């Protein structure tokens, strides 16, 4: 079946099987490799995308359910410059090691700061509870998001 949706600002139409999930359509049919396939069971957050502006796991969304909606991945936000404060803070604070979880963290953090530009540490920790990092732990990631928040709240 054909589905159409907005991906990173542009309309796309793609042929899918109903039993395909959004994650696989993005990676294997639309070439969006920043969306990572981690656990495939809605636990790790590596496959996080923004669906109509809200972070969701693309591994448990059937492709046909995305028809008519809007999907944003980290590539797009990096290209528009909107992620700049977060990227800078992640690098400066050392919130990245292997990088596999990073796109998911950036999207969740971006969605949080759009909604709440002045989060407390507790609010940051609550927002990222669905993203796992197996390298750094969370301390530096939390610090990076709080640092980036300073730039977001100035906007």
């Amino acid at each position: 079946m054909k589905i159409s949706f907005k991906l990173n600002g542009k309309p796309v139409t793609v042929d899918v099987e109903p039993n395909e999930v959004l994650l696989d359509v993005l990676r294997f049919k639309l070439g969006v490799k920043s969306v990572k396939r981690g656990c495939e069971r809605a636990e790790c957050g590596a496959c996080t995308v923004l669906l109509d502006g809200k972070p969701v796991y693309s591994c448990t969304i059937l492709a046909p359910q995305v028809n008519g909606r809007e999907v944003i991945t980290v590539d797009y936000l990096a290209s528009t410059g909107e992620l700049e404060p977060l990227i800078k803070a992640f690098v400066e604070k050392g919130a990245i090691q292997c990088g596999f979880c990073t796109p998911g963290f950036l999207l969740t953090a971006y969605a949080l700061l759009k909604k709440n530009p002045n989060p407390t540490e507790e609010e940051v920790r609550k927002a990222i509870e669905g993203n796992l990092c197996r390298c750094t732990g969370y301390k530096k990631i939390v610090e990076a998001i709080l640092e980036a928040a300073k730039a977001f709240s100035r906007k």
Partner: protein
Amino acid sequence: MFYKIPHFNYYRVETLDEALELIDKLDDFKVIAGGTDLVMDLRIGRYKPRNIVDISNIRELDYIVDEGDKIRIGALTKLQEILESPIVKTKAPVLAEAIYQMASWQIRNIATIGGNLCNASPAADTAPPLMVLEAQLKLASKTGTRTVPITEFFLGPRKTVLKKNELLTEIIIPYEKDVGTSMIKLGRRNSFTLSVVAVAALVKVEDNKFKDVRVALNSVAPTPVRAKSVEKSLIGKEVTLENIEEAAKLVVNDISPISDVRASAEYRKEMSIILTRDSLIKSLERIGLRIEG
């Protein structure tokens, strides 16, 4: 990679009538809303339906309405919307408290309250708060609607009173004034975790005596349950730590926990007693009654 989802026919409906018409004539189907439970169940082969009916686009079932003496929540309302709703915060705070402790932001953004209830997991976290609030569930079919109390909705693990041609459409929550409520959840981790046991409590006090007490638990029986023994023992009694602790011990009469990957039955029994006590104390604190203990 790890799990392949089997093939199925996909049906998308846009209105409730269309959905009810379709499921009335369709066989061998599962209904998908947010899909956060169902897609995993398809992956692990728990269900292998020939057909999937996608109701996630039925806009008319996505709402939170304040009607003074009750609030009504559409079955397709997302958990995160309920968590952030000022209406729920004011009129059913224990439901928001439960949802705050559920899953993760990504899941709450897409999972629906109706899905949590209809999936009928013994660990469903929206069940204990709705049970102490004595919510009513509206079920619709092509031929009409009926309302059942949530306490009669669950029949067993993944089994409810929903007939094949019925959908849960609405959750009706009576607004209770002057009550203290709380929900305490114990999991293997502090966040993004399934409950080992969770307890919701509601108390109403007059002249330092319990006028009303309601306690509900999940993950300690084939369905979420009310702790009638605890409730009966406390109603009419004075508000003292001793009475609360004595009553909390009776919770073991209301539950039948099993041992599984999350905890042993013995541990669940012990924790049910402790969390019942703690949840009652916390509920009392919320109406300004501090119990020393």
